[in-house]
């Protein structure tokens, strides 16, 4: 037993020495653009790290030459915790002296480091969803978000949920993510003067949710909103919907189900399942990215939506650096990002995405910008139409 | 062919109880170890069977050193211990208890099995065969303990206070059966007892233990009749 402990210690200290070795490069070479990536390499959700680093690598490989830049990528592990994120960002700023920070991908950790990055005065690109990360009143504001924010999505989802003569029920995870998702829909409902018939919570990891669904059925629910953290729990809920024979016309969730739901559930369970996303997930661009990603890394993207958002972030940042000509001119780069004529993810183009007071790439006001997605009989993703037409004509 | 202890010491944790005990038990012979309460009699039995660790000295069984073996290994070699208080498995039937004893005899099928004779000599056990041992009377339980030990086909039998809690009549019944087992199996017997008179009557050799040391050894009959020893060591 003692020997084992000694061996484990030895391994651990070698590992940490190796990590130190990486840290201690520090002379800044002129002209090289140094991007710092921070994400949960270890911890409960390493897929957020994987699908931060890989899309950035892919996009940099595509774009660096195009913009005539030499780009270096530095990665640090935030361990999936706020403390880890603080330490990781400190390391990026102080030891690595990076020119811009991408991440952390998880909202709680992003929130933790928001102040530090803001004070550092470096461009910060984020795909985290929490609306609180973005403080639009800051001037200058260093944060640019290349994903939607959760409250915008809620308002879009609410437009869809409460359209027509629907009776809405909510199922949410009994955790922070699920609760805030449910609360924001409840708030939107209040604003719209609509009513929610029933709210049920699911404990993460629960093995059976038939009771919750039968309560929704008893309340006459025909439209269900799911704010669920893990794909496995989504599967448990949809399984219960099938089992209890709940006649739901629409089961609305969000794009996080792409991460693992489709590999778990059976086709009959996704029939009525839809989610709303601003990205054209069934378009050629996403398919092309997936093909290149798979060719490079031997598997399909884990979180395709994040892959897309980080690629948008790379284009936003590198374009601006190219325009200014010096990544060390942080102010110039930030202003250049605000003034970009367009940001592209391959063939998808976003015209004038940002402005002096607008650092969000997507806007909730225009329903035609958002797309309703569902699954076909084989479980493949299909676009049902844009939100405006779905609300007007059904889809 | 004998069980030999040389300078054996042991105890409980840091508390040393036995201080260099020498003892020889030839096969086929009954050796009694007598002494007052707390003299170290049970400690001796538990050390021989391996329930307590031998901290110094050696124990050999027919020439094989056994003092470093776990109790189950010693039992498999034929060193069978009937502990103080019998320690039957109360939730098991009489049959199952005796069956447990048979495990120690695995690999020694050639050794004599006297369980049937014992049951003939004490037929009440047959009537109780399917009953839970915990429900039996004290005397019956002691007989089950003896039957269980017999099922292990002992080469050496350690008996720790077999008469404890029994009436004089039942005690003499137990001693009679012990003598029978010893004779029919040819096992060497270590009989640890507080009933000095009965124990020494049964044995060929006697040892008096005091404060963890053997203080007097000799012919059992001589010890039994020696007024001096009875007064000095045994308080009777």
């Amino acid at each position: 037993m003692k020997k084992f402990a000694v061996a484990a210690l030895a391994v651990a200290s070698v590992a940490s020495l190796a990590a130190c070795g990486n840290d201690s490069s520090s002379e800044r070479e002129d002209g090289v653009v140094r991007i710092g990536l921070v994400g949960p390499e270890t911890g409960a959700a390493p897929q957020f790290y994987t699908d931060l680093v890989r899309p950035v690598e892919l996009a940099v490989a595509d774009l660096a030459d195009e913009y005539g830049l030499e780009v270096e990528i530095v990665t640090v592990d935030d361990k999936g915790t706020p403390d880890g994120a603080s330490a990781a960002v400190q390391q990026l700023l102080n030891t690595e002296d990076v020119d811009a920070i991408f991440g952390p991908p998880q909202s709680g950790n992003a929130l933790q480091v928001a102040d530090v990055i803001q004070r550092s005065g470096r461009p910060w690109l984020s795909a985290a969803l929490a609306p609180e990360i973005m403080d639009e009143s800051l001037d200058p504001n260093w944060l640019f978000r290349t994903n939607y924010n959760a409250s915008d999505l809620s308002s879009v989802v609410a437009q869809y949920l409460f359209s027509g003569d629907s009776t809405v029920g909510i199922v949410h995870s009994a955790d922070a993510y699920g609760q805030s998702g449910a609360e924001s829909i409840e708030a939107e409902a209040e604003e719209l003067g609509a009513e929610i018939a029933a709210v049920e919570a699911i404990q993460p990891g629960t093995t059976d949710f038939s009771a919750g669904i039968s309560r929704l059925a008893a309340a006459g629910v025909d439209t269900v909103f799911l704010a669920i953290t893990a794909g496995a729990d989504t599967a448990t809920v949809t399984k219960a919907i099938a089992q209890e024979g709940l006649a739901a016309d629409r089961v609305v969730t969000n794009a996080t189900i792409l991460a693992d739901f489709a590999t778990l559930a059976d086709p009959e369970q996704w029939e009525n399942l839809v989610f709303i996303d601003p990205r054209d997930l069934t378009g050629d661009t996403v398919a092309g990215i997936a093909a290149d990603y798979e060719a490079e890394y031997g598997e399909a993207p884990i979180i395709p939506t994040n892959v897309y958002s980080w690629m948008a972030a790379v284009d936003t940042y590198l374009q601006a650096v190219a325009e200014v000509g010096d990544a060390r001119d942080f102010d110039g780069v930030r202003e250049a990002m605000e003034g970009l004529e367009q940001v592209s993810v391959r063939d998808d183009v976003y015209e004038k995405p940002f402005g002096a007071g607008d650092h969000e790439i997507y806007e909730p006001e225009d329903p035609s910008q958002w797309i309703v997605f569902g699954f076909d009989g084989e479980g493949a993703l299909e676009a049902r139409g844009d939100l405006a037409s779905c609300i007007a004509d059904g889809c | 062919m004998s069980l030999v202890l040389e300078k054996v010491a042991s105890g409980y944790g840091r508390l040393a109880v036995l201080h260099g005990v020498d003892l020889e038990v030839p096969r086929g012979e009954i050796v009694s170890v007598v002494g007052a309460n707390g003299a170290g009699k049970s400690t001796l039995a538990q050390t021989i069977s391996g329930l307590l660790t031998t901290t110094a000295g050696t124990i050999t069984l027919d020439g094989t050193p056994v003092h470093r073996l776990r109790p189950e290994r010693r039992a498999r070699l034929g060193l069978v211990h009937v502990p103080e208080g019998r320690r039957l498995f109360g939730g098991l039937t009489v049959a199952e208890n005796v069956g447990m004893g048979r495990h120690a005899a695995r690999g020694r099928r050639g050794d004599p099995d006297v369980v049937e004779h014992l049951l003939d000599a004490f037929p009440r056990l047959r009537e109780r065969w399917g009953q839970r041992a915990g429900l039996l009377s004290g005397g019956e339980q002691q007989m089950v303990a003896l039957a269980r030990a017999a099922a292990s086909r002992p080469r050496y039998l350690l008996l720790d206070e077999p008469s404890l809690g029994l009436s004089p009549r039942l005690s003499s019944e137990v001693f009679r059966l012990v003598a029978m087992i010893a004779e029919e199996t040819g096992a060497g017997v270590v009989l640890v007892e507080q009933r000095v008179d009965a124990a020494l009557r049964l044995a060929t050799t006697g040892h008096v233990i005091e404060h963890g040391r053997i203080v007097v050894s000799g012919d059992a009959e001589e010890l039994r009749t020696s007024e001096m020893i009875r007064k000095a060591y045994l308080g009777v």
Partner: protein
Amino acid sequence: MDAVVSGIVLAGLYALVGQGLVLTFVTTRTLNFASGELLAVGGFLALGVGSWSWLPTPGKLAVVVLVGGALGAVVHRWLVLPFARGEHDSRWLLSTVGISYVLLNLFTNGEGANPQRVELTRNPGTVEVLGVGVNKQSLVIAVIAVVVTLALVAASRWTSGGVIMRAVAEDPRTVALMGISPRLVGAVAYAAATALAALAGVLWASEVGATPGLGVHVLVSAFAVAVIGGLTSFWGPLVGAVVFGVVVQVSAYELGALWGQVAGLALVIVVLVLRPEGLVGRRMEAKL
């Protein structure tokens, strides 16, 4: 009626894992707090052997169960025996909790937290039982739990191994005097318990996918059912699971889904106060 039927079906998984807890508690007075992660091991093993197309499904299951059993023996030898050196030594509690965290982290780092689909022993869909739609896989697990329980009860009554186990439960020191190694009995019990956990892991992962956290929630409920039923009887987990499952489901139907779990755990506390040996357990001093 819905709640009762689905409660009983739901209980199977917990009973299966709870049975393993009873096995180790009876023989060694210890519990393996890493059972949940070993259940996840079963799920990942199923993923691994799933690609061996030359081996038929029963063979694959056997591999998973055997590897699980071997792991159980390893846990016993290195993490329980050295830390359970007597009645007052409860360090095994820390060592098994410790290894459960180590395994959880290893799996999360090695496999990621996302569920991975397991095809072995997959039974999708629902069936009607007494007019109530129940999940097929849960029903399969419940049937297996009943079969395992009956097998264990029969074995403990009528096989010599079962007699030894009951004897060890009463008095391991004296069992050693019968030429039987209580350590070996403990190792066998741990192997059997872990094999059951691995089996439960395969069956459950086939339903919800293999994840590092697969067993965390299951183990909590398995503890609950073992305590409710009693840790000293093989009937305990089954009886406890049915009571637990029905209470959880009835409260979930009546009060809301989240209350089901709360009611189940509250029931554990009630049982601990009123009948600490469990509904069908025998009274004995448990030194935990």
